[in-house]
């Protein structure tokens, strides 16, 4: 049983319009790498130029924020759900 990665609405256009993608992975980082390998246009929206996850990209494993786990090294098991959830930020000059 693979890991399920939930795709947020604003990124589905870059993932063949899918709400979720099933992938084989042992960690969150591996799952996101596999995701961006399969759907290359996702990468620039998930990662900044220095290769880090953008600050407004929040990732959960079964409803636990990976910032409070092992971040992208968080282990995932078959049947786990990884959710990519936006936060929204901005402001005037």
């Amino acid at each position, binding site marked *: 049983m693979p890991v399920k990665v939930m795709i947020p609405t604003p990124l589905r256009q870059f993932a063949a319009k899918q709400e979720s993608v099933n992938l084989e992975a042992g960690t969150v980082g591996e799952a996101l790498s596999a995701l961006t390998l399969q759907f290359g246009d996702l990468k620039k*929206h998930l990662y900044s130029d220095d290769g880090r996850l953008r600050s*407004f990209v929040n990732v959960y494993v079964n409803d636990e924020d990976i910032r409070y786990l092992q971040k992208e090294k968080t282990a995932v098991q078959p049947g786990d759900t990884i959710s990519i959830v936006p936060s*929204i930020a*901005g*402001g*005037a000059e």
Partner: protein
Amino acid sequence: MLILKQQFFEQIQAHGARDYPNECCGALLGHDAGADRTVLGLVPLVNQRDDSPRNRFEITSDDVRLAEKEAAANGRELIGWYHSHPDSPARPSEFDREHAWPWYSYIIFRVENGEPQEMRSWRLDDNRASYAEEGIEYITGTPA
């Protein structure tokens, strides 16, 4: 085109006036038909940037999930966001661009000395380098 009922326009403006001189923010719920979107509801939210609210706003992932649940409960989609620019132009800043998501409609409106001014709507281009402005069509009554 973003189709915006007059009552929502006024509610967004009132939120900006109320929170001035700080930035206000909220969610747009509605229906996406590709080139055209219709706003059918709002979820006013609390700006979480209490360290710099006069020129920054943030909507946490928890509030995004809340807005998604509100949309789903009412048979709507989460189609975008609104925020104010106190005493600043109603166009995306570089900070806006760096933090924006594609696909969403971003309403930005100027609030000058506490008075709401122009309102514009924008969508981030897929290359993240720029925005495309979408026109706002104001309507009264119930959209089709």
